[in-house]
């Protein structure tokens, strides 16, 4: 699927995780893009829909406690499927971290990245089975 980037941003607008699949963006471009998106999405209320168009992306976002999960996709991507993907991602992390919270992601960013890498490749969702996603991670944990 045409995922362009995945971001996790907290309520204060601080980026906690950012993964891009689009062509390479420079640090400055990313900074601008992130602040634009954060400004746009965080201002919205719970009652408003979870899809925002920005530049040539469509951003599908969902809020879990203090953390916003933002996924930028192509405009013709299935928004609801992406919402489900976000939920799957959260559930997977929940299973791994056992009641995941912002701090888990802060302190174990590489684990979170690992999970995302298992799920998404090159913007396509390649794995949706939670235990399959987590198995290499568990293996890694057991060896170190």
């Amino acid at each position, binding site marked *: *699927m045409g995922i362009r980037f995945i971001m996790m941003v907290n309520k204060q607008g601080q980026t906690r995780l950012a993964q891009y699949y689009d062509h390479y963006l420079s640090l400055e471009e990313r900074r601008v893009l992130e602040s634009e998106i954060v400004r746009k999405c965080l201002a919205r209320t719970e009652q408003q829909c979870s899809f925002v168009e920005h530049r040539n992306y469509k951003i599908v976002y969902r809020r879990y406690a203090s953390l916003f999960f933002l996924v930028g996709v192509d405009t013709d991507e299935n928004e609801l499927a992406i919402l489900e993907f976000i939920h799957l991602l959260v559930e997977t992390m929940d299973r791994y971290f056992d009641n995941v919270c912002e701090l888990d992601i802060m302190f174990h960013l590489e684990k979170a990245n690992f999970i995302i890498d298992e799920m998404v490749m090159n913007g396509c969702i390649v794995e949706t089975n939670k235990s399959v996603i987590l198995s290499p991670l568990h293996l890694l944990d057991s060896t170190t």
Partner: protein
Amino acid sequence: MSGPSIMETLFQRTLEDLIKGIRLQLIGESAFISKAMEEIRKEIKSTDLQTKSIALQKLSYLSPLHFVDMSWAAFHCIECMSSPRFAQKRIGYVAVSQSFNEHTPVLLLITNQLRKDLGSVNEFDAGLALDCLANIATVDLARDLTPEVFTLLGSSKVSVRKKAIGVILRVFEKYPDAVRVCFKRLVENLDSPDSRILSAAVGVFCELASRDPRSYLPLAPEFYRVLVDSKNNWVLIKVLKIFAKLAPLESRLAKRVVEPICDHMRRTGAKSLMFECIRTVVSSLSEYESALKLAVLKIRELLMDEDPNLKYLGLHALSIVAPKHLWVVLENKEVVIKSLSDSDSNIKFESLRLVMAVVSESNVVEISRVLLNYALKSDPEFCNVILGSILSACSRNVYEMVMDFDWYVLLLGEMSRIPQCQKGEDIENQLIDIGMRVRDARPELIRMARSLLIDPALLGNPFLYRILCAAAWVCGEYVEYSTNPFELVEALLQPRTSLLPPLIRAVYLQSVLKVLTFCIHSYLRNKSSGLFPFTDNLEGVVSESMSKGKTQEASDLPTPAQDDVFNPRISDDNPYEDLPLENNGEDSKFDSFEKNGFTRESIVNLLNLIELAVKPLLGSLEVEILERAQNVLGLIELIRQEFPDQLSPRKEILAKEESEVSKLIRSMNDAFCEELGPVSVTAQDRVRVPEGLVLEENLKELDTICGDIQPSTSSFFAPRYGERIEESLASDLQNGEDSEPSRESTSLLIEHRKRHGLYYLPSSASNDYPLANDLRSGENDRDETEDFVRLTAQSLAPKKKPNYSKPRPVVVKLDEGEVTLSVASKKPSSKYDLLSGVIQDVLQETNLMDKSSRKGKEKVSSDVPQGSKENVQDPEDPRREKSGLRKSKHRSHGKERKHKDPDQVDGKKDGKSERAREKSSHRHGRKKTRQRAEGPLNVSAQTPVIPDFLL
């Protein structure tokens, strides 16, 4: 600087320490980070790989979250990457994926490491390498590593194969020739019994097909099987996306998939899959009535849902279907209209877009009314979006949608009075444009302009200045249509005009000059023609543009019979029958003007008024104002000679009939009566550059000279009126109020207030005027959504063209260059061109090889795409397609043989010309790519590729 000591290594901060440090730091985040970076720079030079990798890990943590540059550490990344320990290797790989791009100088150094890891027996090493390749693959990397990726595409380990499929998209993109090597294996993966591999493969094909659907038509049977068999919603959604692209290309395919898709739509409980089905049907299969009906039903469910997400998607689906099947939108009009006041701005915008899609010349009046009511209630931003879309819809193609310009002009006036309106510039442009293009709209235009100008409250709103500017121009230019020019002058000179920016004020003064000239001229002509019937008045230079108003006023026969004579004349060349009525209606108010027309007394009063108001402007610091004020006063000076204050009029005039002044006035009037027409946007191009004129190629130099001058925003219009409104329009509206304090005598203000008490607050003694249009917004507040719904219920309903009582007035159009040409369809980017070219090549090559190697065997599905045009009526068709579609897991040759004979016949029939073309085209590609693809082909030991996957 030497590397860190043992001690430093021992007490190295871990990533966790760093993160804690950032959270607890007291010296400020950026200071802390730069300190940490210093440490990292030191540690990363360590010879100990563990120290190095932890430093790198910290760096790759800081880089994306705190925007720290890490390109300098490229070489260290490579060192970690080659570590034998997985944890360190992974740190290296993550860093590489994050920071490398095609400009990284050491990029080529990783090729070997990647190759080694791709070939590793450890599936996690291979997985890391594939992940990395998916992120950073360049042309070189893709070319060099194609053989490895090809091998992994057939890996027995699911996790590796899955990732290899994921990486293939990037490889194809960078190195299209890889298609020749890998395509067959990729297609084979569509047959995999493992759902994860299938899902990855479908995902890749979905991306590929979205770029160039035609190339993948031959694979339709595979996709069809997935569509029917798969239980995985993720996969189904992707396959639906593929079919949404393929179906429009091949009608038989569409017919085939429409049933399964409807099945899914009915059965599925997943909203995402249902929505994808809806989207596929409305975008690609909308000609199948039953499917469309079902989809519409489902859309309705979405629209009715409480969830804003579903509602948004429902509206989105409607906007996809709107261009082809308007009735779907009309069926759901209540929801759409109600959504205009939704709390979510995204939903509001979507429904506005939808409403604008429905608008046509038959319902533009009603829709504009509804939208305007919404605009009044909306927040400023959305209000202006609404106004903007009304303006652009109505002005599209030179107002092609507007049948009744009187209505439209009134609508523009109404828009101007909306308090939040910020579309001044657009409205200004349209007012002037309509004035120039539509002669029949001028009377209404001037009436509307009058009502804007006369209202002192409007002068307090800076957003309206542009509109007032246009109104003032209209009043001056088309004064002959005015029922009461004296009143216009009063409005143009009212005390609060001092609030206007100078350049717009200059337009006001210029208009005063025009009106004055017109009044004097009419007066003089009246006098000179004495009691002649008014029809005679019309002879002469100005007869054509002479207005009803003017003739009426000019007439010395204010008898009741006048109207009888008058009306037929009007309807002769003017469809505006309400004009005389209107005049009669206002008779009571302007009685004296009607009866007496341009009497000597009124002219003298006019002169006095102008003189009184304009004289103070001679002290103005603005050149534009000063100059125009001088002009006006100069003219008055001249005219004064004709009108010494108290003399008996009659003989005076008769005696001086041909005086200098009247000649002057006549020629001035003639000059002002010259019609200004619209100018083609391409006009400038047709002016030849005179010999010897050197046009500066590079206007950059100009910037340095006049860098601080703001470019005119309305330059589009500037050339149209020659030197008339010109510069004044280019003014910057916000640049402050008139520098000149209001020195106008308070008596003027008092008098104005007396005359137009209607527009003043009863008790206000100071200059505090109410905000423009408070009244209006108040009265509209009580409008309820239901009212609009009811209102639009009729308006949106499809109806026959309304019977307009009057024919559509002529709109002046220029033959060419006026309408913006539709933008040429965009070209696909060359990269995708290249890629699809190769894929088609591969598919065709396959056909050819098929033919040569297995004589007599015919391609089956490959002629689906190419033959689609020719063999629509082919009797063999359905069968052949069926055979293609039915074929699933086992593609035995025996099966093909069964169909051999009919196919062969077919193939000959329809493929002849096609093949000739293909041959010539692909021979090129083949020759070219041979040498390039040689390497990988040999290495892979799979050559020659004889993919029979097409069958």
